[in-house]
């Protein structure tokens, strides 16, 4: 039985994604595939930039990567118990030797965070590079960051409240 999050004796770090900052460059896919496969190969990258584009109208980019759920459906669904949580990084890890490639994990994952490796034919996903995610290092626009979970939460609140704060200043200037 895997330990619950409370029993993990580390500051919980998260790979935080801010979709508004993504510039769609896919450097994260480069970093991930180089680090994990030794070649540049977006098809085998654990993180993918999904593009929603209409030429001449809009270009939107959404980084999709495992969020290491607190209730990991992939682990619960895996019929051969090939998925477990790394106690140090809190990352969900696939044991490639045990995985049979049945794809059930991919079916149940709500965000497409786990996929089948086209070469090994077993499940593969972000393992946070053992606590030192390569993609974050190259994401200059800071759409990706690796931060303590509690800080990520307040940072997001701060970001979202900035507009309100401007409104506050504006209101004060009017009175």
């Amino acid at each position, binding site marked *: 039985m895997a330990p619950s999050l409370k029993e993990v004796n580390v500051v919980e770090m998260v790979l935080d994604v801010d979709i508004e900052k993504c*510039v769609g460059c896919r450097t994260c896919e*480069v970093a991930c*595939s180089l680090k994990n496969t030794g070649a540049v190969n977006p*098809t085998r990258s654990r993180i993918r930039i999904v593009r929603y584009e209409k030429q001449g*109208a*809009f270009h939107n980019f959404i980084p999709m990567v495992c969020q290491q759920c607190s209730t990991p459906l992939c682990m619960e669904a895996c019929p051969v118990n090939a998925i477990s949580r790394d106690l140090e990084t809190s990352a969900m890890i696939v044991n490639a030797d045990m995985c049979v490639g049945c794809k059930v994990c991919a079916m149940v994952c709500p965000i497409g965070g786990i996929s089948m490796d086209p070469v090994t034919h077993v499940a593969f996903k972000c393992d946070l590079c053992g606590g030192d995610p390569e993609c974050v290092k190259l994401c200059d626009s800071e759409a990706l960051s690796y931060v303590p979970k509690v800080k990520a939460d307040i940072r997001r609140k701060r970001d979202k409240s900035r507009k309100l704060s401007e409104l506050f200043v504006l209101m004060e200037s009017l009175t």
Partner: protein
Amino acid sequence: MAVGWAGKTLQIDLSTGKISTAPWKNEAKMFMGGRGGNAWLFWKNSKRNQDPFDPDAPVILSAGSLAGTGLIGASRMEVTVVSPAKTESHSLGNVGMGSSWAPELKFAGYDNIVIKGKSDIPVYVSIFNDCVELRDASGVWGKGTFETQDLMREELDDDDVQVACIGPAGENLAIQATVEHGYRSGTPVGASFGAKNLKAVAVRGTNPVQVHDSEAVLDLNRVLVEKVKEAKKREGIVRDKGTDAYLQGFIVGDAGVVGDYESHAWRDRPDIKRAYEENFIGDNYVKEIGCFGCPFPCQPLYEVEGEGAMIWRCYPTYWPWKVWMTDLKSAFLAHRMMADLGMDSKEIATTVSWLMRLYREGKVTDADLDGVSFERGDPKAVFETARKVAYREGFGKALGNGPVSLAKELGGDALDYLLHNQGLTLRTFEFRAEPGTALGEAISARGNSLRATTYHIVLWEKPARDGYGGVDPQEVKESYAWSKAKFGSKDAIKATAYTGKPQSLIYEMNWAAVADSLGYCTTMIRPGRTGAPGSQFGDPSYAFAAERVAAVTGIPFDEAGLYEIGERVCGIERAIVVRDGRTRETDAIPDFFFKVPIPDGYQEGRKLDRKKFEKMKDEYYQLRGWDVATGFPRRSTLEKLGLTEVATNMGKMKKLGPEPQGG
């Protein structure tokens, strides 16, 4: 075996439908890929003085050799054709583009594509790894480039397909037509697609691109990201509001041209600055978009509500001044319309600036131009000209064959007023204040050579806070010291000087050729605006490039080795244009720049000095190993570059310069 390349050239014959591949290995080490590889393939596949619309004329597309290898800044593609736009000489024309097409081609397993022949019906090339097919493009023929890209992704049921396509302008063989994919710099090449009934090349690949040392590549990237972070912090650069030098450049530059080389005095007009920064950027800026594998996005996306969005940056933003436009919203919409029609906004705008000058001086009237008013600054003139050229209506019939054709049709002084180089209009650069830039424009193989004529040889002595091209006093001092050590004189990099320019220009052109052959973004690969210590990455050398090529390919390239490749690429391009008729006499720019002084602004009174200009040419040819009398390369020069086969053929055509006496 060296890695980094896919190792394959894709060959497509549109007449027969035959699709085959050839190895890209030995040539790869000599020319890399991109522009250099294209030049070699062009030499092999084109004929002397070939008509651009000859079905047999090659269209060559390629990825730079480092594209898709994960290095930050290496993402560019290159398209090379028998230039329809250089109407007075044809020969080689090329264009480089960023975004994502080039890496995708490498993922599909190819370094380059040579397309020959002509299809009976409109087709597009669809590449998905080994599966290459010609597909019916009747459904998208006539459609704009925006819709074409969307429809192809829909038809191929793949949102990740990368499309390079033409619009109506290319279909209708307008020489101003472009191939649209990403931000581009170069000459218009779209009509060459149209002449083949080729709408697009759509690419998708799922293969890996192998690199020699993946950890080294990652480390080079990590260090670069850190360096850029530090530099941004140090210099307080904010790159995410659209207000960087790339956009406002030429309104504040000393040499920004207004009208048809009629004024420079916009620099200090606050209304211009306001029109740009507050109104346009303030109202319409959306965000930055990055090319594949580059986390330093520099392509600002703008939107006009209810009309649409478009990336508009750098070179293609320098034209509103040429047509006296301060209404940037209209300029943006015109640019967007032209991108959709698949045509070069600068080429059109420069033509319009010429027509506006003729109109103002009473040389032409509304009646000569289908009733369109060419009053200075009238956006309608740009919109109407673009539309008429793309659909070949009215005066667009002649103009679509090039401004020289329209000038001949208009008669009178029209041709004398037209400032062009081989039929391509002269665009942004103020040659009268920049002799080195003038020399580059005259000699460069393709013409309109932005990439060969900036940075190192254009140092303005003014502080950075004064805007584009400004350098801080300390950097000026260091730049001059660097120039003296590198080229033997401080003037070699001074914008307004003649001395030492041939040396610095050759250095600049060779490295630009390297960058274009590696598929490297020039912003990323250059060691900084002036090459001086303290500039962009604090390193005045091109070791930056050499260590990257070595990490990816495993071939121990050093700076000198790469520089030789640049020299070779410029050498083969010279051989091609000489083959097709280029001589010392046609290495020229119009008399205008020698006769009419700059009328106003910071550089008022300057004009080019014929004697000094010709002396620069002498020196340039000598340094290149070309014959001073004819501008032809010598056999020994080509052989030294490993181009023996080229030398032999050039000899047969009597296109070689004599060897120097006693040498």
